[in-house]
């Protein structure tokens, strides 16, 4: 390959072509890197991400009663289920569920049902925590925004929500205290 003044090789590719591609490619990488910084900038910040945990004292909760606690700015439902509610949840045939999941896989102790209280449809908070609330057709929770019904295991039974109410990570510290997160 006889090099000419402008560096043209036998195949017509010049040194200038190479420089243009190299500079253009470097510019594109730089622009993409800068864009990524701006996009990632909008993700949750470190202090937001710092996983806070929430400890809940179960002592004062009577059977049939629910309380709402806050974990990572989200409401968490803690319900002490009655025998009837547990039986109802366990006896539901799995093939009648839009998002099949056995009740046993959703609780650590059958009496205590712990759920993230956010409707899986569009993020409203379902009713059913207070005694006077409408609990829906399946005795669990009812989301007033778009009419999703959840059962006594927090599973979606009817309405537009695609999934069951989520179960947050938690563990029992002792018989009457749990740590969520």
């Amino acid at each position, binding site marked *: 390959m006889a090099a000419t003044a402008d560096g043209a090789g036998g195949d017509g590719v010049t040194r200038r072509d190479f420089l243009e591609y190299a500079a253009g490619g470097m510019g594109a990488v730089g622009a993409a890197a800068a864009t990524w910084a701006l*996009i990632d900038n*909008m*993700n*949750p*910040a470190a202090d*937001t991400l710092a996983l806070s945990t929430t400890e809940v004292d179960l002592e004062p909760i009577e059977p049939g009663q629910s309380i*709402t606690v*806050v974990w*990572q*700015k*989200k*409401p968490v439902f803690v319900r002490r289920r009655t025998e009837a509610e547990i039986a109802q949840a366990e006896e539901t045939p799995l093939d009648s569920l839009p998002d099949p999941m056995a009740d046993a896989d959703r609780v650590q102790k059958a009496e205590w049902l712990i759920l993230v209280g956010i409707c899986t*449809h*569009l*993020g*409203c*908070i*379902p*009713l059913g925590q207070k005694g006077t609330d409408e609990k829906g057709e399946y005795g669990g929770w009812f*989301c*007033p*925004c*778009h*009419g999703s019904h959840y059962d006594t295991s927090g599973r979606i039974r009817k*309405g*537009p*929500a*695609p999934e069951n109410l989520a179960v947050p990570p938690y563990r029992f510290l002792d018989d009457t205290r749990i740590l969520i997160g």
Partner: protein
Amino acid sequence: MAAPKFDNPIVRWIDYRLPVFTFMHHEMHEYPTPKNLNYWWNFGSLAGFMLIVLIVTGIVLAMNYTPHVDHAFDSVERIRRDVPFGWLVQFIHMNGASFFFIVVYIHVFRGLYYGSYKSPREILWILGVVIMLLMMATAFMGYVLPWGQMSFWGATVITNLFSAIPLVGEHIVSWLWGGFAVDNPTLNRFYSLHYLLPFVIVGVVVLHVVALHTHGSNNPLGIELRGKQDSIPFHPYYTVKDFFGLGLFLTIFCLFVFFAPDYLGHPDNYVPANPLVTPPHIVPEWYFLPFYAILRAIPDKLLGVVAMFAAIAVLFILPWLDRSPVRSARFRPIYKQVFWLLVIDCLVLGYIGAKPAEGWYIHIGRLATVYYFAHFLVILPLLSVFERPRPLPLSIGEPVLGGGSPPPGGAGGGAMERA
């Protein structure tokens, strides 16, 4: 076109260096406007007026508003109670958004009735739909800023729409929020974008007007201008007509601002945001109700979201769905009827969107949703083939003056024909 002669030497001096006066003269005096535009053509300039009103009041409001979850609600209440004339500025801004949508929706239906989206105005139409989308995004984020219950839960529901996207949905929602829920980072970024987007709208409006002035306004007959006798200069004829319309419009607008400032709003938004209590009945602002009804009409989350966005997306391809060569509904006997059915359908969707999702409302909502899409995707393409339009007049002047009268001075008709 030759540059006009200006008498004022200062104007001449400036125009030689920066031809703003030539530009104004060209757009206002030489720009030929169809002489038969009716009052439905007022709504374009009204929309431009409302955009300016919202930007000006918004800039003033920003001087007293605090974008923080602990202070936002109180700072808006302070504007309304303590800041001099803050109540007026806030009422104008709040009701102005509603009236901007009223004006723009009428403007859009005007375009639908008279076929203003047809060749050569497809891009003009598409830019209009882009403006409408930007308006919706801006209005949504603006409604979040007072941080009332409806602000918070509206933001929660709408941002959760994106969680319907398979695989990456949850990450996108968390990215939009900047956290695990709608919270201070969300409020801050919405404020930033709410300030920015109106200026983006101004940019697209400029493109919209450039596209408009390339081929000129459509008109109630939907036919091309045949010559000078079919047009009049924009100024003074349509400037004065626009001002008259503006006067009527402002009268109605002021009735709301001064006597019923909260009529179009929702009382729940005067309750400070509470992330642990969802109001029993969440409704968006009235201008989103038809789309909200479409969202709820479909029992599947992802498909509901897709349908809602498709309801607007279908407008982008409208120029290619309606292949009829006749623009104006005046000469399309069947289209004229289905147009009004579409108007009724949109009103029904709006009504259903305001009602709880239960019982008969669900069925009517589904029916109206199906009809909405059928109008664009089935009826319009079929009409293009099967409808027999009535004969078009030869020119705008013909139905009034009789015959295809040649322009005075004898220059052949069509001499003004623009490319």
